[in-house]
């Protein structure tokens, strides 16, 4: 009941739309149907009651195998209900798009930064190739996604290094060396996609994409300077 209430509260707005769809990932007999349902939503009260009792027995089989595959890449809201097991996952459209784009990255060396790569990525997630229609046909979102992922990775890397320095396990680098290393690390992330990178750059320069790409660029620079020890406010 607690899990149902939690799930309900969280997905309140979807309930309001009257969508009485139950996607419970821990009900193995229906897994065949729901395995292909990428978005998981909470059900409404009337359907949850009869189900919680029957899902109890299935909680014991720890589906560790399918859990990682169904989790979105980033942090996601999840609930531990009775007995500490997860009851339901709630994934938004943005998270699903995020997953599709991440899956699409591995097809970029072959297809380039195009809707085809996104379609292949969607296929690996079990979705129809038409899901690539959610994104722009020139692949801008894919590139922006990749760039922002690289920036996040760089940020984390720099943070780790800073922690090591603070713990005294590493020496503090002089600013110019630090900057050079940071930029080098960031550039190395491009190596797997280096063949198609010119295409990506040209797409990033399209007037439509300039605000987002400039934004990513400036925030990356801010990050690097922050970790380099710059205290200025601009």
């Amino acid at each position, binding site marked *: 009941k607690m899990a149902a209430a939690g799930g309900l509260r969280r997905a309140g707005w979807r309930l309001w739309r009257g*969508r009485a769809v*139950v996607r419970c990932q821990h009900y193995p007999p229906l897994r065949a149907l729901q395995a292909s349902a990428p978005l998981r939503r909470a059900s409404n009260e009337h359907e949850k009651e009869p189900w919680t009792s029957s899902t109890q027995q299935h909680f014991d089989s720890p589906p560790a195998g399918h859990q990682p595959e169904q989790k979105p890449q980033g942090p996601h809201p999840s609930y531990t209900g009775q007995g500490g097991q997860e009851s339901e996952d709630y994934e938004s459209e943005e998270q*699903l798009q995020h997953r599709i784009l991440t899956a699409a990255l591995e097809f970029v060396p072959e297809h380039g930064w195009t809707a085809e790569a996104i379609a292949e990525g969607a296929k690996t997630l*079990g979705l129809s190739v*038409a899901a*690539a229609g*959610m994104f722009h046909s020139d692949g801008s979102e894919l590139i922006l996604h990749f760039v922002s992922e690289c920036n996040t990775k760089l940020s984390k890397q720099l943070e780790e290094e800073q922690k090591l320095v603070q713990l005294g396990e590493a020496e503090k680098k002089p600013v110019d060396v630090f900057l050079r290393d940071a930029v080098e690390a960031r550039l190395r992330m491009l190596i797997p996609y280096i063949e198609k990178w010119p295409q990506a750059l040209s797409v990033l320069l399209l007037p439509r994409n300039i605000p987002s790409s400039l934004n990513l660029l400036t925030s990356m620079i801010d990050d690097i300077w922050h970790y380099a020890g710059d205290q200025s406010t601009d």
Partner: protein
Amino acid sequence: LRLCRCPARALLSRFAGAPRARRGLAARPEMHFGFQTVTEEERREKIYQVFETVAKKYDVMNDSMTLGIHRVWKDILVHKMNPCPGTLLLDVAGGTGDIAFRFINYVRSVRQRQLQRKLKHHQNLSWQEIFESYQKDKFNSLGDSQVVVCDINREMLKVGKQKAQYLGYSEGLSWVLGNAEELPFDDDKFDVYTIAFGIRNVTRIDLALQEAYRVLKPGGRFLCLEFSHVSNPLLSRLYDLYSFQVIPVLGEVIAGDWKSYQYLVESIRQFPPQEELKVMIEDAGFFKVDYENLNFGIVAIHSGFKL
């Protein structure tokens, strides 16, 4: 899956049942047929008759009424779909096959480009390998894409098949007689579902949307091209003038049928506007529902995804 849909269906039938209850025993839900009020069955019958009569002149009338612009609208729809080879398309109410043919052309050209790109990578292969890859690709000019044209009206399908033969389309095309409110297909089958200028003639739009949701694969796309409401007041007046004064006359002169084209024009006015249709599509369970106005709202393309 049945369990899930029942409550939704129950909600909907309650909704439809309420007016019934209000009017007493003999009442059947009243619907609009153009500006007349008829019962559901009457409406279905009348619409069937309309399209039976206009089937042979359908394409000619489309061209004359819209001054050929309907071709552009349909092109835009297929471009928006941006199908890649291997896509399975269901074109409902696709009678004379316009969308289906455009889909095949599009996929063929995309496939050509794909093969050309592959050729570039073949510079370093041996002759034997190139020969083998040619064998593989030669019989696959569509890349396994398929389109199923479904229509409730036999006459329209007949005209469509004749057109296909005349224009030389044979591969990847199939014609099925079926009702949009109750499609004769299994669940989770198609990548894209389109309905171009057809949903206006469906008696129960909500059922058609539910069926669309059912037959689409997860991640599949719903696309609807339909006449919609013009918000610009000046254009709206000109459009009304053109619709009510010119189109039925054209109908009489070219197809010999005033009434059918009067129905057409009236049904456009009765159709829900863009936002309302968007809400209906969302209610059927689609996500990322959006619409694009073409020609200031004369036509709108609604798109939704089954996620």
